[in-house]
């Protein structure tokens, strides 16, 4: 079928030739049942229409110093019902955790409780100015303090920096604290060691923070090669960055030995807390010898992912690093809580390395995370971790005979498969994952971690019922059997039933079209 760029039939009569719309056939409108095509805002709007009613003010004595805009901006005008329909239609082209199992390994797509949304919108939080006087924000500062207390108690670390705005920002915060601590000791340490299985943010952050990056090898069992770590440690190493549980979904059982090696070499031990959700409420990273760890509140503590943010990445710090936490610092004295915003006036011993952002962190996420913690309690947080690990192991046990698992279990909160089982079938990891879309599932994480060929990383999370996980396993089993039966047609070019077929990423990169232009 020939289509124009809005997905509608280019020949209006084409669909009329059909007796009835069929699964594969065209419709007159170009829409199909509940699936609506939707133009861009700029193609819908027109001059003179508006979705708000505001008075038209004439300013006789403007104070704009001659800088008043001369030409129009070019924004389209639409009424409220048109805007609402536009975005509702767009929303329906998205997969979401609320609509189905979202097994995206290392991303932790768990349920987002609606209570948390409600509480974050209380005017006392949502409508509170960041620079309101301390007397007008005692409740907000108390909330931050309480969240800090939960985070330090759960992790067994004495301090926490709250201002990082996402996981990668937290990593940067941790490495800058390490940099400051190294400098305070009068040492020059320019190297950071990162396992080869690490997430791309780890080396990117280390380079961003001014370090050179060296990779540490993995063992055939998917863990850090302790001998290689030992060989690469030296007086020029500032830090070792480890994800634990690691990116293969495995717990690094030698973590305490690693911490000892790192500390003996005079370096600091950074832990990427992306997978902390497997061990929260059971293991305190502080007991493992960790010096700094960011906590993705949008993973472990379920603040919504929002289509790619906002996140929040507070960093817990050991006693060796606590003094270097960035500004602002939250202090409590006889007048209640207040924020210390600059070096002058910091508590004795504090040596903040600088500032991560204009204000004091992702307050909206703090409210949601604390609501999650209070709702779950210590028993619920532990149970959530256990259920996440149980579900992942259940998936691993149920599929490892038809797919191939590179490492022996037990796994932590995610089950890793490779593409050995696809060898010779003509079906790739990508094809298999895209075919899951036709079955109503979001694909698992693919081709990560890089240390496993054709990796498929499945994280069911604790939010799925057994029935839901059983259905998922059943679908994947049948699909795997179809691969083995040589039915590769359904995999090639999948998905077929999604709002779009595979998209041409090469064309997108070669001739980038990054905004709408009037034709």
């Amino acid at each position, binding site marked *: 079928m020939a289509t124009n760029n809005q997905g509608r039939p280019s020949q209006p009569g084409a669909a009329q030739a059909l007796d009835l719309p069929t699964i594969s056939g065209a419709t007159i409108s170009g829409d199909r049942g509940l699936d609506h095509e939707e133009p861009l805002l700029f193609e819908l709007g027109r001059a003179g229409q508006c979705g708000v009613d505001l008075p038209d003010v004439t300013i006789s004595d403007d104070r704009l110093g001659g800088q008043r805009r001369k030409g129009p901006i070019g924004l389209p005008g639409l009424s409220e019902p048109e805007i609402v329909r536009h975005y509702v239609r767009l929303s329906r082209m998205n997969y979401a955790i609320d609509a189905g199992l979202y097994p995206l390994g290392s991303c932790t797509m768990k349920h987002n409780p609606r209570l948390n949304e409600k509480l974050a919108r209380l005017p006392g939080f949502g409508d509170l100015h960041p620079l309101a006087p301390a007397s007008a924000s005692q409740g907000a500062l108390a909330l931050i303090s309480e969240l800090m207390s939960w985070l330090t108690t759960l992790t067994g670390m004495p301090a926490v920096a709250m201002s990082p705005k996402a996981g990668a920002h937290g990593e940067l915060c941790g490495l800058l604290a390490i940099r400051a601590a190294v400098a305070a000791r009068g040492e020059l340490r320019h190297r950071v060691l990162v396992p080869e299985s690490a997430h791309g943010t780890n080396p990117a952050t280390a380079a961003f923070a001014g370090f050179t990056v060296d990779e540490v090898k993995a063992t055939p069992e998917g863990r850090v090669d302790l001998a290689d770590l030992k060989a690469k440690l030296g007086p020029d190493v500032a830090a070792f960055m480890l994800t634990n549980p690691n990116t293969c979904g495995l717990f690094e059982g030698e973590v305490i030995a690693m911490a000892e090696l790192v500390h003996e070499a005079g370096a600091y031990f950074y832990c990427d807390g992306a997978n902390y959700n497997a061990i929260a409420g059971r293991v305190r990273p502080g007991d493992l010898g960790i010096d700094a760890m960011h906590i993705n509140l949008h993973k472990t503590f379920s603040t919504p992912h929002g289509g790619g943010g906002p996140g929040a990445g507070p960093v817990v710090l050991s006693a060796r690093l606590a003094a270097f936490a960035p500004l602002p610092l939250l202090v409590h004295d006889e007048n209640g809580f207040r924020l210390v915003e600059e070096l002058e006036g910091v508590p004795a011993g504090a040596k903040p390395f600088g500032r991560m952002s204009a204000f004091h962190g992702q307050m909206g996420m703090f409210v949601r995370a604390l609501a999650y913690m209070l709702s779950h309690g210590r028993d619920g947080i532990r149970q959530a971790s256990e259920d996440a690990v149980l579900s992942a192991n259940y998936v691993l046990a149920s599929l490892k005979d038809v797919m191939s698992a590179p490492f022996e279990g037990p796994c932590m909160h995610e089950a890793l498969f490779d593409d050995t089982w696809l060898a010779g079938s003509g079906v790739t990891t990508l094809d298999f994952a895209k075919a899951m879309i036709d079955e109503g599932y979001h694909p698992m994480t693919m081709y990560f971690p890089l240390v496993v060929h054709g990796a498929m990383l499945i994280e069911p999370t604790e939010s799925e019922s057994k029935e839901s996980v059983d259905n998922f396993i059943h679908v994947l089993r049948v699909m795997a059997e179809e691969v083995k039966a040589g039915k590769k047609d359904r995999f090639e070019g999948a998905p077929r039933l999604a709002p779009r077929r595979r998209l041409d*990423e*090469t064309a997108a*990169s*070669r001739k980038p079209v990054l905004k709408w232009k009037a034709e």
Partner: protein
Amino acid sequence: MSETRYTDQHEWISLEGDEATVGITRFATEQLGDVVFVDVPEVGKSFAKGAEAAVVESVKAASEVYAPVAGTVTAGNYALGDDPSLVNADPEGAGWFFKLRLANKAEFEALMTKEQYQEFATGH
């Protein structure tokens, strides 16, 4: 009469007089997939042997292209800016990256011949 040599980084270098043309091999383009962008160096830049001279990107990967020999850039294939697909279509012809004036011809002589490279690439 030009003479062509190859590097273990999958670059080819073709010498005519004291000017050499550099690009990446067909084997390299097959590994990369569809090339979407090439960062071609400016004329007049000098590189030591092995220095990062260009960057070639596909949708999912980015690779540095190293100067196979020391020299100064005399020309860049800026047509790749408009049409990076030339690299896939004709990697060892119209898809060239840049030309260098050689600093030391011995460096060129030390690189792999076509036969040596073919053996290297297939064994890799």
